[in-house]
């Protein structure tokens, strides 16, 4: 996560707050909440669709952040990336929990418009956007839908109407192309 001075300031504030959590300072958790909870709910809703499940994922994320703050290593990555990785894992746990029924009509949304909609929200200058746009539509869709909506290999195969093996091969090839394009 790079970008404006504002982004850099937020990153520094989140990193400092995680360090304070690691030292046992609970007020630092509220700092993270004030800075990021709104976007965290947005990201969780994008994956889980339901407000109650999104809030559950965010609540769980704060628990894990408090508990695992000491394991955050600023040498290895950005604080906000760490925070959103924890959130993503919480949301995926809920999504992949076979005991849950995540009812919604949106998951039936067509692959192509869902993918283009997600890409359209990326900045014009985004290297990720430019490199994804160079891929064939279906190969672009598997990567975008896996990330943005948390779809599994099986769900991608169902949505695109192709065998599981085809989806797996598309994902790998797309990632190799993306890697080369983004450097």
């Amino acid at each position: 996560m790079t970008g404006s001075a504002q982004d850099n300031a937020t990153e520094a504030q989140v990193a400092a707050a995680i360090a304070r959590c690691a030292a046992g300072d609970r007020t630092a958790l509220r700092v993270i909440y004030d800075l990021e909870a709104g976007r965290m709910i947005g990201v969780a809703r994008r994956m889980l669709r339901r407000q109650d499940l999104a809030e559950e994922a965010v609540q769980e994320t704060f628990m894990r952040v408090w508990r695992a703050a000491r394991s955050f290593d600023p040498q290895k990555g950005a604080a906000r990336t760490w925070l959103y990785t924890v959130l993503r894992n919480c949301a995926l746990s809920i999504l992949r929990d076979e005991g849950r029924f995540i009812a919604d009509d949106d998951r039936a949304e067509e692959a192509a418009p869902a993918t283009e909609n997600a890409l359209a929200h990326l900045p014009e200058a985004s290297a990720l956007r430019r490199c994804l746009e160079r891929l064939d539509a279906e190969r672009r869709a598997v990567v975008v839908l896996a990330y943005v909506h948390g779809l599994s290999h099986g769900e991608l195969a169902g949505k695109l109407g192709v065998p599981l093996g085809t989806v797996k091969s598309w994902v790998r090839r797309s990632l190799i192309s993306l890697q080369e394009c983004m450097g």
Partner: protein
Amino acid sequence: MTPDDKALAGEYALGLLEGEAKAMAERRLAADPGFAREVEQWRARFAEFDDATAPQPAGDELWRRIEADMPRAAVAIGPSAWTRFWNNLAALRVTALGASLAALVLAVGLGFAIKAARQQPVMIAVLLDGNRAGAVVHTFADGRAVLLPLTAINVPEGKALEVWTLPSRERGPVSVGLMNQARTLRLSLKDLPALRTDQLFEITLEPATGSPTGRPTGPVLFKGNAALAL
């Protein structure tokens, strides 16, 4: 890193790996700094999607719920692939039956040691690997709980033994202790609800600093259920 390694790191970052493939990637993430860098790079790339997602209102109500959870946050964890195991009642019943029998046998033997120590345990859990007893947990009326190893446990370099319990299926497994070798260990059950009969305990093999996710990630070495002490 080959292009395939980099793609694997990307699949992991996307959350597409499941089962053994995911477990293998997690082990590699912990052991291979080059692979960890690739995963981190993919996360940073895809984070653009998160930055581009519109924030939603985050009110005080959600914050109050988070705050209300904090007293147990120190040892709390959430739903995971493990919930499938914990939710599997049949597996739990079989384990409970085996452990109860073993607990009966062991509780008689332990009675002598405990009398000698003038401490009356309230509940005992014998943790088994198949039919072999690996450790015993006993809890006392004053809230203390201790794990005693009954056998040598091989702990590889860079790994540790983590002790878990399952206060309820809704809540999921909770870490109650970590040790780098089999030894007598005081368990932190204080922030948990009162121990129930049949409450599950288990020991898993985790990274030296404990599970990175706050839930069991490594293989289960021993498990068993709490029973009333004789």
